[in-house]
């Protein structure tokens, strides 16, 4: 349970980091919080020749909250985002989701951008990026591009980052006025990977549901975003048929079985948790 030898790089500026990443190409990994990467290295599931530790890079640990979005730098810890009062005011789903990410000691070190780059199909923040319509900023020595969730998440543990690129920040927009949100999941123990997780946003105009969307973790290779408005549009929020929205979601997912849950159990969870998440979101 010890990592294989590697060459360690500790750049202090973004430019220096990007140059090193360009030089090491596909035999380098970026180390931020390391809460997913270091276990993989300890178990020798990966043995990159170069580790580029970005923790000492100036200017990457910021959490910026404007009126319309929260932007999280590459080395901002989950705990920093979770505790940020202004960010909570702008996009409260961040804190709600982060409370489900592992345990406090892991959140003290793990980074929100790192969990996006890790692209775990069970990672809560992947669904938050999808539901909020957020983007990630990808930098390399050659330039910069902003990418949305649909393009960014390619498959299980796979995102569209290419060798030499760094996920520099993630931007989570605020929801439109009148929108409430929630994140619910079922895990064997609190803090474990969810068997199924649902984050939902419901927009209410004059007591009537005008939009309902949800994003799912652990039911597909990448976070799945569904528009469920058709099931509940125009209904009074107090009596909206969230169960019907849950049935609509069930018809749109194709979960897989593993040692933790069967296909039918996951599908069942999609229905129940969708209804629960939508009702909770609508009440906020």
């Amino acid at each position, binding site marked *: 349970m010890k990592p294989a030898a590697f060459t*360690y790089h500790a750049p202090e500026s973004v430019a220096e980091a990007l140059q090193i990443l360009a030089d090491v190409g596909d035999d380098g990994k970026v180390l931020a919080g*390391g*809460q997913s990467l*270091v*276990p993989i290295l300890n178990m020798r599931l990966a043995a990159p020749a170069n580790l580029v530790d970005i923790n000492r890079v100036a200017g990457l640990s910021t959490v910026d909250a404007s009126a319309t979005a929260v932007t999280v730098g590459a080395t901002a810890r989950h705990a920093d985002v979770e505790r940020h009062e202004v960010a909570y005011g702008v996009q409260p789903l961040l804190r709600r989701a982060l409370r489900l990410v592992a345990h*406090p*000691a*892991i959140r003290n070190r793990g980074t929100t951008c790192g969990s996006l780059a890790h692209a775990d199909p069970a990672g809560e923040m992947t669904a938050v990026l999808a539901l909020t319509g957020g983007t990630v900023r990808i930098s390399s020595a050659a330039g910069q591009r902003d990418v949305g969730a649909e393009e960014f998440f390619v498959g299980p543990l796979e995102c569209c980052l290419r060798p030499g690129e760094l996920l520099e920040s993630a931007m989570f927009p605020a929801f439109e006025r009148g929108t409430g949100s929630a994140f619910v999941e079922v895990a064997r123990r609190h803090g474990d990977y969810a068997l199924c997780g649902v984050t939902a946003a419901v927009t209410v105009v004059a007591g009537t549901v005008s939009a309902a969307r949800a994003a799912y973790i652990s039911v597909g290779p990448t976070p799945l975003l569904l528009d469920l408005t058709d099931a509940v549009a125009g209904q009074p929020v107090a009596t909206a048929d969230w169960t019907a929205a849950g049935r609509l979601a069930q018809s749109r997912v194709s979960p897989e079985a593993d040692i933790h849950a069967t296909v039918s159990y996951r599908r069942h969870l999609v229905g129940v948790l969708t209804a629960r998440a939508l009702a909770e979101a609508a009440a906020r």
Partner: protein
Amino acid sequence: MTAEQHRTITLVVNGATHQVDLPVRRLLSDAIRHDLGLTGTHVGCEHGVCGACTVLLDGRPVRSCLLFAVGADGAAITTVEGLAAADGTRHPVQQAFTECHALQCGFCTPGFLTTIAAALEDNPDPSEEEATEIISGNLCRCTGYQNIKAAVLRAAELKRVDR
């Protein structure tokens, strides 16, 4: 194959400064135990699940098995050895563990003590539910957790009396 890369770093542990030369792949947990000889920090799973190796990095609990020692260069680290006062007086959390019988084999205890000590700095008066949340990231195979939860609440009480 070229020689493995080493670095000379400064580890500030429990207020004492140590200069050590170590391979860059040395985990912080191993640096604390092997290079510094502070074996109070225990190593359980080595992939961040059990919490036995939890130390405080600049006051915050972190898994020392998921950090490279080179990443902690210059940071202030507190291990379980740093909790008691210089004269040996137990930290309130250690006192509470004794009173509440919150350990049996003791393997997980260093991780619980550091985790709870830091949590009580953040939240000096946790509810029962918050006490459960505080210890949720640490595994114990002996106690069934109830006495540890009681110790969290007792430690909070002791800290209040101290003031």
